[in-house]
Every structure is written in structure tokens, then in C-alpha cells.
């Protein structure tokens, strides 16, 4: 059933809310969706495909945890392992998309901070 049920194409960064309340992931289910990642130069967005697979679930006395693995295209260097606790399982896809998007924003975020750090050399 990998990737067959819930491929979400052309998902826009500003419209992640559409992912809320979807059907929960099934065990070993793989879904693909697209998130946007801004380029360091403002005004440009790039669509990036993300694959999320529910590796396992586990119930603890205090919470239920869902363990996912995210992979993307070559812009992310490694696999991302995500444990989601609490919340509605139907929202997991949106939460995973937010996490993936945050990773994709890293470059622009770091550039912003680096620019600021140059103006504040008193921390060295």
C-alpha cells in the first residue's frame, strides 16, 4: 500500500491546512505530498516532494506515539525520523508537512541569522 492512497500533489506552503483531518496513516503506509521551500532570495518558492512512511505505532500508558520516516529530494541530506505524540492522528500529515517545510527553510533562516550576527559581534 506504499504511496498509493494519499499522494498529495501541488500542495502549497500557505495551504497546509488542507492536510488537517485527513485519514490517519495506516501501518507502513507511505504518502507523498509537496511543500514549498523559499529560496534564500526572497520571493521565490520551490516545490519539494516529501515522502512520509508510518514505521510503527506504540501505545504507552501516557500517550500513543506514531513513528514516521520522512524523505525528500536531494535538498535534504538525510532521513528525518519523527515521533508524533498526542493530537489527532488525522492531523499527522499536516504536522509532518510543517516539520519538513521547516527543514527546507533552514537555509533562508540561517542566512537571516547570519546577517544579524554580523551586526552583533559583541557575542564573541
Amino acid at each position, binding site marked *: 500500500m506504499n504511496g498509493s492512497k494519499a499522494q498529495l500533489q501541488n500542495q502549497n506552503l500557505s495551504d497546509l491546512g488542507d492536510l488537517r483531518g485527513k485519514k490517519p496513516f495506516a501501518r507502513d503506509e507511505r504518502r507523498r505530498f509537496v511543500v514549498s521551500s523559499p529560496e534564500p532570495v526572497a520571493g521565490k518558492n520551490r516545490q519539494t516532494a516529501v515522502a512520509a512512511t508510518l514505521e510503527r505505532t506504540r501505545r504507552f500508558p501516557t500517550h500513543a506515539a506514531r513513528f514516521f520516516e520522512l524523505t525528500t529530494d536531494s535538498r535534504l541530506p538525510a532521513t528525518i525520523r519523527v515521533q508524533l505524540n498526542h493530537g489527532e492522528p488525522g492531523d499527522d500529515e499536516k504536522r509532518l508537512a510543517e516539520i519538513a517545510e521547516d527543514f527546507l527553510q533552514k537555509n533562508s533562516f540561517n542566512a537571516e*541569522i547570519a546577517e544579524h550576527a554580523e551586526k552583533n559581534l559583541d557575542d564573541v
Partner: protein
Amino acid sequence: MSLLHYIDNEVPAFGEWDAVVQAGSSTIVQSTDAAFPERGAVGLRTTVVGTDRAYVTRNDVATLSPGEGYHVGFWLRVPVAPPLEMFFIISRIALNDFFIKLSNYGKLRLQLRDDAGSYHSTSYSQAIDTGRWVYVVANIVRASSPTANDGRGELFVDGLSAGSVSGLDNYDTLDGTSYIRIGASSGVSDGFTCDFDEIKIGTSLADVEPFSPEPNGDYVEARRTVVLVPDSSDGREFADYCISELQTPRSLICYLPNASSSESLADYATFQSQVENDLTSFLNGRPVIEARACAFLIGYGTPGFFTSSGKLHSATSRLNHFGTAFSSGTANPFYQTTTRKTASEIRAENLWLATRIDADTLANAKALIDRAATIETLSALPDTDILYSDDADYRASVDCQKLRIATAASGDMLTPNAAFVLGVTGITDLDASGSRVTVVDDGENDTATLRSVSDWVTYGLLAAGYASGAGFANSSPTGFDKTAFCELLRVGATFAEAALAAVEKVDHTSVVAGSPLMTVAFLLAGYNFYLGTGGVEDIDWNNPVAYAKPEDESMELHLPLESGLRNVLGLRKVSSAGVEERNTHVVIHLETDTEDALLPAPLARPFDTSAEIVPDAHIRVGFSYETPAGHSQPAGFEVFSDSGSGILDLQTPIYVVSDVPPSADDVEVTFPIPQTPSNTIRIAVRAIANGQTSSLGKVVSVKIPTSPAVPAFLQGDQS
């Protein structure tokens, strides 16, 4: 004010977090290695491999109304020096509202984003030492309106402000519900490792007060003692020593960023700016600790004196009165107190306990803690220890007897085997032997520094191995009450408690040096003396009138005897554990006449008297006697009879027993039957000694056998 979230990381499988994100080979784990040592079993450890992130997320942390703010506090430890900078806590709504990062120089920085996307920051001037737990708090406040530039942020490290930013237009940035991430959140660098634990999110600084363990009891202890140290390398090292050796909770260490290296400050205002103000801020941000604490330890390198009205005042005396306006020479309400006071009782009198540990070197300052620990490990002071005092009246007093320690005058002699030197008149040297608990200089010799040898106190601390000392920082001392000091130590109070009870004034000149928590186990074994008027049943067994050591064979007592009455002195043995027996083996009767001259001890009367007729017209009288405790030994016995008249003639004994063997308890004497008109006589015996007589023993009767009448010569007619 409220605590919004408290994440102690003890729930398995990250149950207190909403998400756990680990990229590549970077990890964030719940680990025993990362546990804050004073609470719980696990903490968070994040380890970065390459440039991949690993962090945890908590959603719905706070929603700020205009002008509102919140605080995030957590214990942080960097096990190894950071190779490059890393952002390890980020609060975020849509973008990065604020974050804290650690630079590769080990410095913490708080950065806040404004609505224009610019970042504003403040940094902690000190580098975070690797391996040391520090409590970090970030405060962020939303601007009060879309046009108001009054958003702000502040960074706190170990309870004190480490920098702030203000004048921010962050109204829109903080419009929403934020979440936080903790761990290797962004900008990570290979090899970075960080530990986090005890994370609190609350409205005010006090809401995110770091965990402090509940005190074990009502009296002063490490969990009630705030340690003050300069925010310096030496100060932190001394604080670490207090944590490891005194079990001081980390949250009770008050680092003083403004403390100078000067031991004596020019005036009280300077003392306030370098010590008191930061201490006040520290306690204001930690209300739980403020409510529990009752003592200060002024640590190595902290200013210890200030001048006011031309007189050198002591930091310990001032902090005795902390929280109340400085008023030189305020009367100490606990002066001469001889019972322990609870922390609440101390604070109720607007008092704090305060001692100071300072020295010429950090090593010597640590040594004072070590010496106190050595003394505390003694189950009892060795019986070779001596209390030196130049106060003969004190040495002869019941209060001093109570200590069950040998005493000697301190004048004109060396001080071998010293445990206490209380007053140093005539001392020529402080010998480096004995337990050396404390040396008190209550004379005119100024104790105006603890950082060099200036008087007997500092000589004792720095050169002669004493664990503690007390003196005065001015040439007009107000005295040191030895009785209260020693009595409180005897009943188990700490050095800080004893020292407070010994000084007449606070906000003044008394200098108290040493570990505040040191206790001294005086020898408990010996004998307690009790006194009553009348009989044994009248002895007041609740209030001893004198004390003796186990080896004491004789001692001079000064007892409050009642004139003209019989006073009864009872002794009871006390075990080495301090348990007093309930049997009374020794009772001494002390009777005085109306001129207060002591009368001889009473004589016990003989008992088991018997009498019988033996051949040759003799009578044998037997009786027993013993000398009970507190009675005189008889020198002889007098035997009386009634000569058949029925009335004993006590003026003329019919027989006197003068040869009384000391150990004999049965006496038997034989003498001729006295002349008597009756065939029955009564016999009684009493003891005599030194013109004293006992009461008569039991009166016994004996029948004298009569012979048949001699037959009369028969006269008659013989023819």
C-alpha cells in the same frame, strides 16, 4: 501568575512532548546521563552529527494578549565545549519569535524578532563552563499595541539578569499561539552535545523558579542555606565545592555579578550594589527558596565588610538582618538564646543566620569546609580535647560542666588538644592539635579581614587548622556569649545558630567564619546531678544542677542548698548515647543549719535486732546494719534496755559496740544480764558517729528465766 507547563522529562517515550524530530545520525534521547542531579532519573541529551538537527517540540505553549509575556526556564549543561554555535531553544508562532543560542565561545544569547523581521539580542557576558549545570530563563513580552514599541525580552542565568532588550515592535510577531523546540534546533554543528532538564514555562520569573528539594526538617540545613559567591571562576568553583561537600542545592547558589574583589567596601551603599541588591533580586525570582531559606553562607571572594559612620561593619552581621533596613547596632532578639529555633522562628524575627568562608586562597577556603566535615564525623569529641577560656567563672559554671569537656585557662599558655578557644587573653600560640572546632576572639583585637593573618581568629583559621572562628571587626566589641554559643552546639544546633545567639547586636561588627552547618558532638556520657529539699521523692529530676564526666572522681559543686533543711542530691548515669538511667544509685543527704553550715550526713538505724539469754546469765544481742548512699558510716552502736521498767533509758547504754569493722553488716554482742526487778526486759540499738545518733532500731523483748526458789530450812521439834 501561573506555571503553564512543567516538563521534567520523566515520562517515558517523550510523553511530555508533542513531537520528536531527529535527522540523519543526530539524536535527542531521554538519558540518565543528562538527568539534573537533584531531581528525577532522566533528562534530554541532544547530540549532533554533521549538520543534522535533533529536537523536541511542545505545542500550544502560550497565547499572549497585547502587553503580556511569558518565561521559559530550564537547566542546561554543555558536557563538552561547543565547536560552533547552536540554537537550542526556539519559540515560534509563524516565524522565530525568539531563540536562545550558544556560541562557540560558550556564551548564551537571546534574540527576539520584531515585526519588520529584524533580530534584537542580548548576551550573557560570561561563558558557560562545560560540565556545569546552569539555570537559563528567557522572558519575552509582546508589545502592547500594533504601534507601541514596548515589546521586550530578558535573559536570566542562574537567577540573575544577564541582559535585556527593549523597545521592540513585536506585536504581530507574537500574535498567535506559540510552540517551543528544545534541542539542536537550528544552525547546528558537528559534535555539539547539550543536556536539558526541568523545563518550566510560566507567566512570571517566579513561576519558573528552578526546582529545589524540600527541606528535611524545620531547622537550618543545606536546603535552607543560600550560598553567595562572586560570578567568577573562583566563585563558581567554590559554589561547586559547596554543592558536592555541603549538599547545597544548585538552585540555592546566588552568583553575584557585581561583587568586586575587595574584601572591605567603602560604605553600605556599595555593599548594597555589590551584594544585597542582587541577592534581593535572586530571592524575588525564587519565592519557594525565599520562603524556606533562613541562612546565608558568604562564599570565597565575596565582600565581607563595609564602613558605616567610621566603623567597620561585618557582612555576616548585616546579613543577619537582611531584608530589613540597615540600622547599625540593632539589638539581636535571639541574643543568649539557648534553645534551637526553627527556620520559621528565625525569619519571624526578621533574622537570618549568616556565616562567611573566605581565606587567602581558594584552597584554604575549601579547607574550612573540610575541617567542619571532619568535626561533624566525630561521634563525640575525644576526651583529650580541652576547652580553653580565660573566664574562670565560666569554666566553673554548670553550663560549662554540661559540655563534659576538660577545661583550662587560656592565659599564658599554649593550647594543645584544643577544641575551643573562647577568649584569647594571654594566649601565646594556637597549637595545631586537638579537634580545633572554633577560636573566638572577643577582645579588642580586630578581625578586620579573613584573607590574611591579622589576629588570633585568622591565625587559627589560616595557620592553625581551626574549622571556624568568631571575632569583631571593630575595636569596640560587644562581647560573645560563651554560654549560649556552647549550649546551642551541645543541644545539636549548627555553628551558625550558635554564633547568632552569642552576639548582642546585628547590623554590627561581629564576624562569624566557618561552615554554617557544622555541628559538634560533645561527649554525652557521665553523670547528672539532681537536687531536692526533703527526701528522694522531692528531687527535681527534670533539671540537673551539675554534670560530671565519666572519669571524674571528685568535683567541686556550687549548689543552691536550702538553709536549715535537708537537701537531697541524686546522681544518675548517662550513657555514651546520651540516655540517662532511671535508677538512682547514689543519694547524698546534705543538711545545713540555719547558719548554712553543712551538718554531717545522717546515720541509718540498725535493723533485724534480736536478743536471747545465753548461759552464765548473759544476754546476746544481734542486729544488722548497712550504710545507704548519702548516709554516714557509724562509728559504733549503743545498746539500751528498760531495766524492767518499761522505759528505755537512752542516757545510759547497757553496752557500747565500738569496734565496727567497715564491711561488717551483722553484729553480735554478749554481755551480762543487767539487774532488773522484772523477768522481762526490752532491748534496742542505735548507731552513733561523731556526736550523731541514729534513730532506734526495733525494740525487742527477752524473758529472763527464773530459778526455782531455794527450799526453806525446815524447823521443827527435834525431840
